């Protein structure tokens, strides 16, 4: 079972090794002349002002929350989706679809609530 994932590890290893080689070549070939101005934060040519810890639009956090919910929903969908054809063949297709319909309906209710509350507006 898990030996199928060996190529995945190998790809990681090979890609990491090649990236390392490229970085090493660029390290050997490239110049290194650091100075204070070059190493300063780039802010379009003027000295950087203030801290980087700026205030963030709260919507970014909301999007992260919605993503978690919907991604979980997608994860729940996958097993059903893989089995759906088999269920259809064994005559339980209608039942399977209703089951998933109920699940989606519950989700949709929450989705509509968020929509109505303005959670999806980006203003």
């Amino acid at each position, binding site marked *: 079972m898990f030996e199928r994932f060996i190529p995945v590890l190998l790809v990681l290893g090979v890609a990491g090794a090649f990236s390392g080689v490229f970085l090493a070549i660029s390290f050997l070939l490239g110049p290194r*002349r650091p100075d204070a101005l070059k190493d300063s934060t*780039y802010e379009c040519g003027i000295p950087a002002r203030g801290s980087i810890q700026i205030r963030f639009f709260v919507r970014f956090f909301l999007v992260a929350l919605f993503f978690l919910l919907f991604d979980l929903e*997608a994860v729940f969908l996958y097993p059903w989706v893989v089995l759906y054809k088999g269920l259809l063949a064994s005559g339980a297709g209608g039942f399977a679809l209703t089951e998933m319909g109920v699940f989606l309906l519950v989700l949709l209710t929450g989705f509509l609530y968020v929509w109505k509350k303005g959670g999806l507006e980006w203003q």
Partner: protein
Amino acid sequence: MDILTALLQGLPGFGGMSDQGLFITGAAVMATLMFTVMALCAIVFTWMERKVAGFIQSRYGPMRTGRWHGWAQAVADMLKILGKEDIIPAEADKGLFVFAPLVVLLGSLLAWVAVPWAPGFVAADLDLGLFFIFAASSMVVIGILMAGWASNNKWALYGAARGAAQMVSYEIPLALATIPVIMHVGSLNTQDIVIAQQGGIWHWFILRDPFLFVAFWMYFIASIAETNRGPFDMPETESELVAGYHTEYTGMRFAFFFLAEYANLFLVSLIAVFVFLGGWWSPIPGLDFAPALTFVIKGILMVFLNMWVRWTLPRVRVDQLMYLCWKVMIPVTLLCIVGSGILMITSGAVG
């Protein structure tokens, strides 16, 4: 993979090898091959993008390097970038800053493992294939956030936050749009998905039923957003954020982001091809003499379509981007799933 092990077995010196040894050697060869293909496609596509952009804007694009239509321009760029200074800003979080490009690159490359190039020719024949691809390519978001945060630069941070918001949002319609196809196949294995589309263009999933047709276009739009390309290139809007999350990167580390972007572009195009557009099958049945070539050509055509869109449409605003994803694409893809399910029951057609 099976083809590769069979090939290796025929080579002198490999004949006496155990099955496991052959398997691992084959996988290592495949991994090297894939990295080469990725680097090569990044080089070819940068040139292609500049030519396509040029012709769309009534100019030539690169013409000098290498005489014929500036074909060597991208190679020259790559060589040049190897000799550039690697600047790490004094304010940056060094560990994260150094590591972030690798996470982005490895994330996009890892997903390539499950791409079915030809019958039996896939680096890792995973039962979870398509799921694995989406899971692995999610790593890119982490890399982008790392890069933006570690740069300690306001532009980079804004770009990273936008990029993360956009990529996680569009991941949902991207994954949901492929679900009707999996319903028809009954498997997440990438080989099975392609095999289910055998026998001419009308067996491809894009033309199987109207819901799948809609799902394909939903997938296509989401894939453009997922690769952060125009008209959805909010993370690096040059006019607002300098270069977004890779503002502070130079030399090879910048090149890694660039490589990853084109690797991702080709990846989402290849996914579109093997999920909706028949994978390695040719449009006319019986002409399947070069499956891998057919697959790559279709992939390149999809990349071309992507470039066409990028250089034709103006950039959208952030609120339009979120509107499109949450209020249009997610409901439509959910509708496609339900519609396809009902259609499968009523038509009684299984498969």
